[in-house]
């Protein structure tokens, strides 16, 4: 619809607007980073400014890798179970209506299952929802 530069601008704008709700901004979704924080807390590194500066060249890449791990692996992995639970609750649990109705709905439900699961999982992986 727009030129590539315009698309980039709009995408960047949307990203900025949505970044506030990003999963990584919630402390509960940063398991690896939190464990690193806990590991260096009250140590020689954090107790002095010199220690903090000295450790920075190592801590910056380590922290970045930990953040990426949290974002790309840990949070998506944790989102699988609740996403499956949502899908199962929404589509399969407590069926209503007659057996015939359930039979008629079987194929649509089978088709909808991966779609709903993927959408739910992607949303839970990207944004900060409770696990």
């Amino acid at each position: 619809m727009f030129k590539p530069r315009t698309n980039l601008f709009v995408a960047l704008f949307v990203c900025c607007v949505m970044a506030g709700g990003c999963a990584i901004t919630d402390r509960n979704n940063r398991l690896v980073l939190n464990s690193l924080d806990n590991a260096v807390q009250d140590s020689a590194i954090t107790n002095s400014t010199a220690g903090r500066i000295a450790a920075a060249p190592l801590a910056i890449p380590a922290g970045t890798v930990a953040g990426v791990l949290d974002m790309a692996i840990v949070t998506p992995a944790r989102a699988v179970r609740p996403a499956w639970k949502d899908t199962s609750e929404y589509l399969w649990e407590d069926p209503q209506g007659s057996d015939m109705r359930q039979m008629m709905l079987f194929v649509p439900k089978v088709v909808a299952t991966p779609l709903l699961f993927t959408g739910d999982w992607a949303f839970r992986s990207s944004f900060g929802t409770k696990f």
Partner: protein
Amino acid sequence: MRRLLLFLISLNLLVCGGCAVFNRANTPALNFVERNMIPKENPGRALFYPLAIPVGMTAVSLDMFLIHPATVVGDAWDDTLDMLWTKNLDWEKRYVTSLASLLPRAVATPLVAGGAFLGRSAFDIPHRRTTSVAPQADVKAARQAAEEKRKEQEKKLALARQSLESGDRDTALRLSSEVLAQDGNRDEAMVIKATVMLDRRDLDAVATMPRSRLFFGDTRFTEGFADVLANGTAAERMQLLIMLDGSGSSIPLHGKGTAFLPLLMGALEKNLADSDRAIQMKTVQLLGKYQHGNSQARSLLEKVAQGNDAVLAVVAKCLSR
């Protein structure tokens, strides 16, 4: 580029109800023109009309693109600092996270600052001084006032309860009414008031009070209620029987708050032996209602069903089925 401009203009038009320029406080140039440059009297005023549109447009444009944006720079910067830098940077407890987030924060800073600046320039967003400091003070003051009010109510309720125990019903009634006037949902005040009304045999007032099920959880009230039900005049007893009937399922028959049931059943048993047929009948009806949840009511009903009064026995048998 033209399409982007069109997109931005459309976006602006969509939300222009909240446009900064529509708030008088955001148009100092237009205010100045309005105040100082328009003649107050005719014919000068009439002569100014042809100039009003170009002068006004110039002033509004100045406000929109220069003056108002210039006044929001500080606020936009403060927004950015608040959002990205002031909070969540804890070098002692979250050293690695803080360090790793420096680059993303630095990248986001111009974007957030630009967005905040554009947003504040275009829309009527109150200045930070008026939004953050004043309401916080208001909220704190309101919270303090509410806390003081709650403490005062607690004090009054304690005094009311004490007055009721010592027999000073007037004070108990006055204090509980004062609390209810401030907060109509204070259960304890309602119970105290109902107890005083019951003691005064003002049964109409008790009957019309809301949430009567709460009253039966109060020992003082239930004792008074059972006393009137057992020893009151026929009319009073009938009124209480009707009240019980109206309370329906709100009378607790199981679990907590059932300590009053033996008292109530004793009073009902006494009413079964009353000479007034209406009272006897109403009592049997109530026992029929309570029989499934209360063994004492069931055994009383069985006793009536096997008793000498043929009419009541038939009713009791029908209700027991």
